[in-house]
Every structure is written in structure tokens, then in C-alpha cells.
């Protein structure tokens, strides 16, 4: 199981899912209609490091963070 958390304005509680790679995570999240408008704008961190590669192999307990568009300052 990996944990997926949704940051900032997505305002959705974390979920736990089975996933071997981020491809599996993407497939799972696309089933959730409430995320439809978010996914194409969101970046992804794996265990708090930003990632850019869907094929990374996940392991038990990994934390995946979904980061919507930002505006600090």
C-alpha cells in the first residue's frame, strides 16, 4: 500500500492504494471525478522529493503528494 495525500486547495483526505508505479497511481486517481480538474495542473512528490518519471518503482509505505498550482509571496 502507498499513501496519496492531496495538498493545499484540493481539500481531500489522504487515501491508501495498491500501486507498483506512478502509472498505477495515475490510473487510480483518474477514476475519481473530483480530481478531474486537478490532475493536469498538479505536480507530484514521492516521499517529499519532486518527481518527473512515471515509471519509478514504488515500495510499501511510500508517500505520494499531489501539489496543485502554487502562489507564494
Amino acid at each position: 500500500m502507498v499513501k496519496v495525500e492531496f495538498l493545499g486547495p484540493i481539500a481531500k483526505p489522504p487515501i491508501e492504494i495498491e500501486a507498483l508505479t506512478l502509472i498505477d497511481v495515475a490510473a487510480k486517481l483518474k477514476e475519481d471525478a473530483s480530481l478531474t480538474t486537478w490532475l493536469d495542473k498538479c505536480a507530484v512528490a514521492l516521499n517529499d522529493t519532486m518527481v518527473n518519471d512515471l515509471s519509478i518503482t514504488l515500495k510499501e509505505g511510500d508517500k505520494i503528494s499531489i501539489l496543485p498550482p502554487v502562489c507564494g509571496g
Partner: protein
Amino acid sequence: MELYEGSLDVKAIFSRWLDEEATSNYGAYIPFVGTIRAEDGIEALSFDIYEPVLLKWFDAWQEKAVALGAVVKMAHSVGDVPVHTSSYVSAVFSPKRRVALELIDLFVEDFKTNAPIWKYDVKQGKRIYAADRSTPMDGAGLLS
């Protein structure tokens, strides 16, 4: 990297950073102070921060700065920050002015694009995500 609940005490932060580097022999110190503008009838802005990724983002900038002989500093607010008070201070110290002027520009601009901070307008006590002013981070869309 410093995070504070509510408005920043800008004078105290500016002065402390100056003192911290008082004998470091830097010739240029450039702070950037971001203050909440009164516009669109807002009472305040409000901020969420994802600290673990922010710290990594900041550490990566510190490495870049050190490679140039410089140092960066940053403070940001969490939660509500009323208009005409400040939510953000960053700074560069460098031996030379060109490095400092170029670095503060790059640092502030990358901050706007890649620091994991979410902004909300506060109107009549309600928090409204500033979607139109927000920018997808580098790598956005990976899961779409």
C-alpha cells in the same frame, strides 16, 4: 528558512539577517519584501505551506548560492496575513553586486513557480483559493 504564523516582523527579520552576516565580508545584501496589497476587497491573504518540499527547494537554492560565494535567506507566513502587512521576505548576501542582483531575481521568480505554497483570498472571513494567480509547478501534469 523561517515560517511564522501570521504577518512577518519585517524589521526584526531584516535586522537579524544583517547581524548574522555582519562579519561575513559580503558587499551586497538585497532583501525582497512582499506585502499584501489592498485590492479586490480582500481583508487578508492566507497561505498553506507544505514544509518538507519547501525545505528541499530552499536547500537546493542554498547550494546554488554557496557555489556562487553567496547565501540566501527566506521567511514566509502561514495562515492569514492582513492587507498592508508582509508575508514574504527573502534575501541574498554576496561579495559582489552583480551576483546578488541576478540571484535575487532568479530566487524570487523560482520561488513564485516552485515553492509549495498555496494562496487564498480572505473575503468576509472566507478563504478562496487564488486559482487565477497560481502557477503549476515544474513537472505538473505527470499523472494526467
